[in-house]
């Protein structure tokens, strides 16, 4: 996902231990690399011609005794992002790298060093081929790299270290400290967090959001720690970061979503090519268990809210029931097979751009209609079910996310109904007589004041019904996900682009 193999430190984050390079020409080699052996005479010539420092990664006596500095610890190579050997650098008087060449390439070496006829004999004959690729630097060897990252890079991680005692089981220790959502979490070691940060190009110290209820500034690093705990892979991190950003907006209002007694939590819908890149599941059981990115991305968002924001059940989270989706509720839209534009496009995103949309929702409730083959009939089926959301008398107070399955969406697609058309028709069908919803109507005390009698009111505000398409290929069902207090006084869905 990213070009660089490790965190890019900026400004104050530069670890003080980063060793400077000497001025002049600097070469990195290892004896185990045939190209390095090939260029050994060239290195001797450059050493005679001027300032050359050679760092050797495996054998301090290579290219010859006394010529090279020992970098068998790989500290210099690691800090200066050496990816291949031989690498030739030119470093200015202030220690800044000006130029680098990877592998042997006569013209580039001559241009970089200012020394001519490299790799040629006295008569000008070729002693070396014009070019030859090098080998991988030991500092990026997959076996060594994770330990090097911890040894040289962990000092850039700002989070407090918690030492576990000898007798503590690490999984139990995380439960005991209140860091989990009730399920075991992956211990966030330096090694795992550094690996997680490989998933983004963003600086670990960058502030992603201010997380309610404690209104704490949350850095990329803190999100990464919680993403490790949730079980995310590094490539999921950009999705988690975007979802955390979206959840922590005034519009979404996570403080209110937590504090309400209603059973809602962040529902994260993912759009764009990243759904497929990560292997998310938009098909069978899309809203259920079994898919790692679906489950861990949603869980990571909730762990950030819990651990960084301090939003814990029984404290600011006052939900009467809650719902199982508060552990994690994240799914991708099945854009490829959908007759409609993706959800993110309803919020203004270009189709094909990676986005998350967060919605404060309860658990999904199934709508069964196995006989409607005409769009009008199916829309009516949806409407009578949507009418009951939270209470058949509840109007205008709550949004809804309607998840339409492949078999149901086909009925609309075959009749040429756009998403707009379906939404408009549902709004028409969901204009309710005030007489039905006033207090006492139907023998039910719940309801609107008597003054509503004789009026007609919509079930949802104009933008209060959002349609998403996903699910398994078989099943004439759709699902509705009820929201919390809608609009600026409650929570509004928020879309954010996913940045690398």
């Amino acid at each position, binding site marked *: 996902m990213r070009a660089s193999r490790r965190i890019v430190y900026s400004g104050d984050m530069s670890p003080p231990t980063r060793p400077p390079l000497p001025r002049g020409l600097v070469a990195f080699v290892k004896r185990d690399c045939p190209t390095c052996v090939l260029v050994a005479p060239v290195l001797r010539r450059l050493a005679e011609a001027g300032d050359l420092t050679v760092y050797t990664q495996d054998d301090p006596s290579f290219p010859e005794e006394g010529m090279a500095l020992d970098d068998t610890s790989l500290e210099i190579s690691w800090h200066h992002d050496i990816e291949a050997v031989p690498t030739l650098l030119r470093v200015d008087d202030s220690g800044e790298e000006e130029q680098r060449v990877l592998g042997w390439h006569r013209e580039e070496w001559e241009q970089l060093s200012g020394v001519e006829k490299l790799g040629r004999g006295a008569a000008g004959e070729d002693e070396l081929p014009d070019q030859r690729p090098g080998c991988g630097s030991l500092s990026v060897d997959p076996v060594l790299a994770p330990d090097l990252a911890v040894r040289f890079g962990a000092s850039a991680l700002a989070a407090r270290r*918690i030492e576990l005692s000898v007798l503590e089981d690490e999984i139990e220790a995380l439960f005991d400290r209140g860091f989990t959502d009730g399920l075991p979490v992956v211990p*966030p070691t330096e090694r795992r967090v550094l690996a997680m940060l490989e998933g983004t190009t963003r600086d670990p110290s960058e502030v992603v959001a201010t*997380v309610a209820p404690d209104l704490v500034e949350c850095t990329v690093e803190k999100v990464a720690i919680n993403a490790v705990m949730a079980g995310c892979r590094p490539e999921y991190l950009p999705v988690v970061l975007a979802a955390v950003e979206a959840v922590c907006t005034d519009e979404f209002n996570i403080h209110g979503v937590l504090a309400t007694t209603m059973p809602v939590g962040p529902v994260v819908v993912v759009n764009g090519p990243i759904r497929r890149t990560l292997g998310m599941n938009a098909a069978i059981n899309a809203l259920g268990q079994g898919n790692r990115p679906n489950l861990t991305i949603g869980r990571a968002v909730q762990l950030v809210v819990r651990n960084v924001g301090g939003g814990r059940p029984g404290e600011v989270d006052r939900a009467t029931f809650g719902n199982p989706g508060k552990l994690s509720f994240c799914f991708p839209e099945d854009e490829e097979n959908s007759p409609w534009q993706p959800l993110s496009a309803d919020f203004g995103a270009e189709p094909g751009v990676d986005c998350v949309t967060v919605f404060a929702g309860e658990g999904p409730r199934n709508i069964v209609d196995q006989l409607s083959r005409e769009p009008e009939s199916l829309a009516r089926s949806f409407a009578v079910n949507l009418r009951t959301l939270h209470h058949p008398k509840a109007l205008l107070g709550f949004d809804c996310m309607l998840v339409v399955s492949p078999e149901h969406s086909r009925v609309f697609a075959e009749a040429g109904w756009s998403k707009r058309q379906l939404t408009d028709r549902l709004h028409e069908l969901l204009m309710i007589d005030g007489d039905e919803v006033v207090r006492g109507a139907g023998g039910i005390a719940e309801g609107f004041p008597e003054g509503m009698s004789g009026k007609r009111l919509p079930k949802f505000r104009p933008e209060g019904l959002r349609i998403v398409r996903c699910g398994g290929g078989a099943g004439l069902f759709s699902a509705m996900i009820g929201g919390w207090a809608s609009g600026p006084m409650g929570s509004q869905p928020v879309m954010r682009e996913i940045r690398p």
Partner: protein
Amino acid sequence: MTRLENGSVKPRLILDPTSEREPAIRQRLPRPAQLRGLKVGLLDISKARGDVFLDRVDERLQEAGATVLRFSKPTFTKPAPLDLRQEIASKCDAVIEALAD
């Protein structure tokens, strides 16, 4: 846990996932505001004369308006069995464990 070449143990570190507003070491539960109305368990670990000490604590707690429930471990040589711990946790607001000798 990793044992280093010199025999010492490398500490196991995790990174704090929180806002770091609380101390890193585990905190004690807050002390009860008052004894009156509190259900206090007294756990006798079955060492000699532990009961003498606990009888006196029992008297003092009852004078202060607490309800006292008495428990005892089958033997001081082993941790309290799970069902005893669960019984105490479900019946009491606080527990005092008495050593003796």
